[in-house]
């Protein structure tokens, strides 16, 4: 009888905890995953605190959430990395002493982004767009195609009719997109192959680096808006990707070998199990 009661009590504990589950989960994680003296404390950002708050102008209030969706946020690039200032000290957050540069003007944008993305800046300045910006002040900059805070990982579809026809015909952009797409498909395939290999535990750091290199050089090239250059170099990039692929296929072969080897053993042991079982059965009958 007492055993029943104990069991009932345990049962009730579980039955009653469903609504509080989320809160307990958080409290639990806080208690058990408490990072002891070893780890870094959670990064403080006063920029985000202010820009998210009620006192901020509405058009600036949406920036933190845009940024959180971005590729920059995923790689821990935060407000001060581009705009300067002090992310931990409210009073000094937007002071020139701490390197605050504020919002760049339209003409200043390429240099603003180019502080980190140096290679792309070089190509951009040589391009029709870059030259136009210097001559007339009216030209697309980084922000025109990539956005300012909600920057996603670049894809070939940034080149599209809506965007490019704002200033000129879509003809050249279309040719450019076509020229790029051959290599782009190859890039996507290689990226998938790398992901699969990595998931299976193969160490491919060197190949991943090479892939990124090819990928980055190719994309950087595009910023020259020189279609002929892209067409000329397409062969070179296709060849480099192919070389990389043949190295990757060696890894796939190894994975296949492992699978076949394991299947071989599996069948052997299953066969032995069956045979021994038959012998057992026969002998037991006697």
């Amino acid at each position, binding site marked *: 009888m007492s*055993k*029943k009661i104990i*069991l009932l009590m*345990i*049962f009730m*504990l*579980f039955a009653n*905890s469903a609504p*509080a*589950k989320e809160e*307990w*989960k958080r409290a*639990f994680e806080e*208690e*058990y*995953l*408490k*990072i*002891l*003296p*070893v*780890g*870094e404390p959670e990064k403080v950002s006063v920029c985000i605190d202010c820009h998210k708050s009620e006192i901020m102008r509405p058009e600036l209030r949406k920036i933190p959430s845009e940024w959180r969706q971005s590729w920059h946020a995923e790689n821990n690039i935060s407000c001060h990395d581009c705009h300067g200032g002090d992310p931990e000290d409210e009073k000094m957050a937007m002071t020139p002493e701490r390197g605050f540069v504020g919002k760049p003007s339209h003409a200043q944008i390429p240099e603003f982004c180019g502080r980190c993305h140096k290679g792309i800046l070089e190509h951009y300045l040589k391009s029709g767009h870059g030259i136009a910006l210097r001559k007339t002040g009216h030209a697309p900059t980084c922000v025109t195609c990539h956005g300012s805070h909600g920057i996603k990982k670049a894809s070939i579809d940034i080149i599209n009719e809506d965007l490019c026809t704002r200033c000129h015909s879509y003809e050249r952009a279309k040719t450019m997109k076509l020229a790029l797409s051959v290599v782009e498909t190859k890039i996507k395939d290689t990226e998938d192959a790398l992901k699969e290999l*990595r*998931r*299976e*535990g*193969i*160490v491919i750091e060197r190949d991943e680096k090479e892939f990124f290199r090819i990928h980055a050089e190719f994309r950087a090239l595009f910023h020259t808006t020189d279609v002929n250059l892209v067409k000329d170099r397409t062969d070179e990039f296709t060849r480099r990707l192919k070389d990389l692929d043949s190295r990757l296929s060696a890894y796939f072969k190894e994975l296949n070998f*492992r*699978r076949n*080897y*394991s*299947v071989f*053993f*599996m*069948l052997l*042991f*299953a066969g*032995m*199990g*069956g045979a*021994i*079982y038959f*012998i*057992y059965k026969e*002998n*037991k009958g006697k």
Partner: protein
Amino acid sequence: MKLMDYIDERLGLTSLIRSQFIDYKVPKEINIFYTLGFIALAGFMIQAITGLFLLFYYVPHPDHAFSSVQRIMNDIPYGWLFRQVHVVGSNLMVAVVFLHLFSVFFMGSYKKPREFHWLVGAIMLFFILTFCLSGYLLPWSQLSYWATTVVANLPTGFPYIGDIIADTLRGGKSVTGLTLNRFFGLHVALLPCLMSVLIAIHIFLIRRTGISIPPWYERLEHTPPSGYRHATYPEGQPFYLFMLKELSMVMFYIAMIFFVIAFLPTLFLPEDTLVEANPSRTPEHIRPEWYFLAPYQMLKLIPSKFLGIALQLILLLVFFFWPFIDRSPERNILKRPKLLTVFIVTTFLWIILTITGGR
């Protein structure tokens, strides 16, 4: 054979083999579940052998542990084979041990005169889980590090002694190279010795009391009299025959290991095992291995840390001393609806907790 005669004159091996394997009879009625113990033993041997091979290349230092495991998996010929068998084998062995536990409980084989078997078995289960816990840290991946952090924090639920226990376990206030070293020592030296001793005792106990038969057969093995009586089965099958059955089951068990390696190679190696441990970055979803999920989930659900751990301890004690708590002479669980209900409900709860613990 001349050699056999030579040995026989000195050791009498042939007659020993005859008495232990041919004349020694086990009941005809023992079913397939009775092979689980041997499968667990075989599983343990497989772990020991593959573990030994891994020991040749693994480096138990936080700066080299992860990369040494990567080298085993990628550069050393057939290193992947030994590592995978070790990983998959450990999980399958725990599953077999659980099945063995369930079937022994279900068939009431823990009752008089076999209470000590259960006790020793319970200690063995505890050791196996410690094996798993200590082994899990060794690759020094993100999952290793953080899962260990969580589990090593558990004893802190106790007032006063909790912190001391946790610190001794970790070798400090957080998981570090010291933790790695002591877990390594546990895993390859202390636990194998203790486990071997326990296995020997467990087998001795089984042989000494005689093997049980499933309780639903009309003939009871004997109504427990007072005084020691070894269960014998003169009309039974020679033991070597049952060993054949056990052997075939072991073959299937090994085939199962290779099935998982061939077709589900990442089943027991989630993505967090592919990243080296980073003490300053907690991954998003930490969870212990599946066999710890039920207690983990139970802890999550109970509001107070102390109460949660205390409850676990109480359940643990009930589990350990069950044969002394349940002393009814009736072995057949089908004739005891209350116990059957408890058994089914507990199993069901355990499964639910394990599944929800994984979310």
